[in-house]
């Protein structure tokens, strides 16, 4: 009997996954003060993409993405596509690990070796995956409650402190739509909403399969609203110029909190929260890589793969870019075009079309 997660855990896992690095990197910031508009629109488009993934899932309810590609497009092409997906998930896991290593390195541990910071996070993830999806789900539920209370508490502190300046988001109706549209596609749509493709590896682990669509859509809308809300708060506090040039706007905004010279320097709290969020995102990508590669190589015991893949991701996270600036540049200017658009949008839609035609033939 395979381990299952229930719907509430599934919801929490999706929200934590979506918010993870999007909150850290402030995805909508290239649209200036209209980041929230681009996030909401991208979220709605992300729902459509999610419907594509769930539709594929309804054709093959008990199989993960890497298996039904082989059923849809045949053994040879299918296995190549599956392998590409596994590599993609591994690369994404490495990117997330790099993001959060950089966060810790810049904000807290200047003199500590980044290898150790990354290895500690990776160690937590390896342990989590060894325990299985059920444990991850349970932790997601606990993490959801804890992390969101901290995030809202910080926003309440900022509000009490009188840092929220509504004038910074005015005028609400944009005049120039081109930066907003450019932010929506490809940046905000693919990170984080398109990354939901990873969940098509997890759909078979859900106990109530009929609810995949509903719960997923709720989770995407919830996370998109939270991201938009957080974006508005940051713009109100920092103004669009600082948000655009700041490396971690959320931290800059939190560092301004000063209530009676007593509640100050909340960055430490934000760093802990963000790293925890990042670990959930890392867990999901890591888990997808492990089950994907186990499928392709037909290895029964997935646990054997955890250590080698974990170490591979750890090494990869340092190899993908020489420095953090280049890492961010690749993330914004290269990855969406060469990886996200083909693997999140083009391939799933083509798969769905083929599956649709195949199934109609079967019915006829």
């Amino acid at each position: 009997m395979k381990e299952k997660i229930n719907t509430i855990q599934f919801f929490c896992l999706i929200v934590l996954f979506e918010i993870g690095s999007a909150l850290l990197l402030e995805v909508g910031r290239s649209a200036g003060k209209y980041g929230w508009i681009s996030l909401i629109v991208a979220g709605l488009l992300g729902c459509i993409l999610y419907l594509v993934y769930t539709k594929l899932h309804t054709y093959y309810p008990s199989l993960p993405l890497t298996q039904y590609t082989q059923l849809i497009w045949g053994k040879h092409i299918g296995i190549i596509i599956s392998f590409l997906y596994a590599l993609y998930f591994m690369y994404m896991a490495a990117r997330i690990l790099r993001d959060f290593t950089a966060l810790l390195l810049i904000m807290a541990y200047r003199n500590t070796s980044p290898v150790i910071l990354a290895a500690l996070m990776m160690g937590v993830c390896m342990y989590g995956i060894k325990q299985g999806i059920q444990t991850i789900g349970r932790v997601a539920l606990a993490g959801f409650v804890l992390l969101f209370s901290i995030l809202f508490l910080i926003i309440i502190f900022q509000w009490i402190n009188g840092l929220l300046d509504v004038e910074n988001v005015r005028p609400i109706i944009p005049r120039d739509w081109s930066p907003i549209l450019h932010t929506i596609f490809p940046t905000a749509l693919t990170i984080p909403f398109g990354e939901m493709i990873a969940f098509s590896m997890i759909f078979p682990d859900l106990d109530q399969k009929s609810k995949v669509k509903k719960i997923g859509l709720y989770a995407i809308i919830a996370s998109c609203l939270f991201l938009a809300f957080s974006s508005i708060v940051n713009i109100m506090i920092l103004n669009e110029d600082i948000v655009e040039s700041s490396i971690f706007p959320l931290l800059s905004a939190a560092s301004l909190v000063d209530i009676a010279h007593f509640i100050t320097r909340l960055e430490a709290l934000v760093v802990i929260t963000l790293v925890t969020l990042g670990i959930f995102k890392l867990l999901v990508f890591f888990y997808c890589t492990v089950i994907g590669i186990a499928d392709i190589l037909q290895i029964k015991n997935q646990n054997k793969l955890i250590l080698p893949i974990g170490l591979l991701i750890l090494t990869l996270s340092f190899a993908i870019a020489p420095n953090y600036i280049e890492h961010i540049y690749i993330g914004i200017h290269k990855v969406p075009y060469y990886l996200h658009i083909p693997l999140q949008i083009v391939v799933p839609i083509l798969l769905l079309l083929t599956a649709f035609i195949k199934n109609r033939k079967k019915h006829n």
Partner: protein
Amino acid sequence: MVRDMIGTFSKGFKVLAIISLCSFLAACSDYKEVNQISFAIGVALDKENDGTYKATLQVVNPSNVTSASSTGGQGPAILNYQGQGRTVGEAMWKSFEKLPRPASFPHLEIVVISEAIAKEGLLNALELFDREPDVRLSTAVTVSHNSSACSILNALTPLNKIPSNSLISNLENIKKVAGTGQSLTISQIIQYIKDDGQEVAISTVALPKKKKSTGDLSNLEKASPTSPEIDGTAFFKEDKWVTWSKNHEIRPVLIAYNEMKSSYITAPFEKHKFVTAHLLTVKSKKYTTVKDGIPYLKMNVKGIAEIEEIKGLYTLENDKDLQPIEKSVEEEIKKEIKKMIALTQKYQTDTLGFGKQLSFQHPSQWKYYRKSWSSLYQKAQTEVHVDISIKTAGSRTHSNQFQRGETQ
């Protein structure tokens, strides 16, 4: 139970566990004891004649902060270290060489920038502090006037043993009580500078002229020690200092941004009579329109005041008697605002944020006039309405002199 748990792991995991346990030790590599670091509390930036920067780093001397002399040492509570270099960073780094312990910046309270650097541009000077993650963006920034920035941090202060802290509380206090100064943070200043349609005005600090060994403990042995005071406001265009004016002339800026908490105003009325009023709440609204290429700026101010003092014979019995007083206070505030607008128009710097207001009210016009706004602002027609209502007159009605006049 622990043995059971360990038993469930594979060999690889046991090895991994041992390795990861070792890595916990590495977390200590960044650890510093409190007595091994020195807390930088203030930084002053000066420009030397040869074009280099001089940074003065104020570091707390913890044993001298506590006032109980049994444990405390004899010297001042702070130590100032200086360094010189081509950039702010180089100057700071040179000053680190002189420190006996590594400096730590999370507790930095204030950055004092000299007039010369402010005239050259604030953004260059603030770049280091904005980039450094240890420095809080809520660190206050002030500008020195007529005296070098390092002399401001050098002057020992009486009530608060740490000059940087004293300066900060002075800035906070002047805003809270007198409404004639304000402390802006690094992030606020960068926001003001980068935003179109508004410019920044920063309170300046100066040492009184008769300065004599202010960095000496003997300074504290006087009843009126020479300590830095907030003497006025520097008006900036973009990030460059363009003009300076006296203390209370920042009041219109605070009114325009609805930042005014409390202030005192003295206005003449009737013949040789003066009233001193305490402004309790003052709120304002700005309106900007552009017609035929000429901007029309309108500012409506509403406020509540109470009478603190009336100089001269005056009967204060009913609402009618209050009218001339209210009117004189209104006129005084109006004069102040108009004077400040005229000053900023002269230097083409839109300190009150009328341009920003235009961008809210008429976005399409703003798009058109944005580039030429500062020259347009110079030609603007201004209209100021002030409405002050006096709610109370303290604990008496007539002025003192009047009663005496009647009995005689």
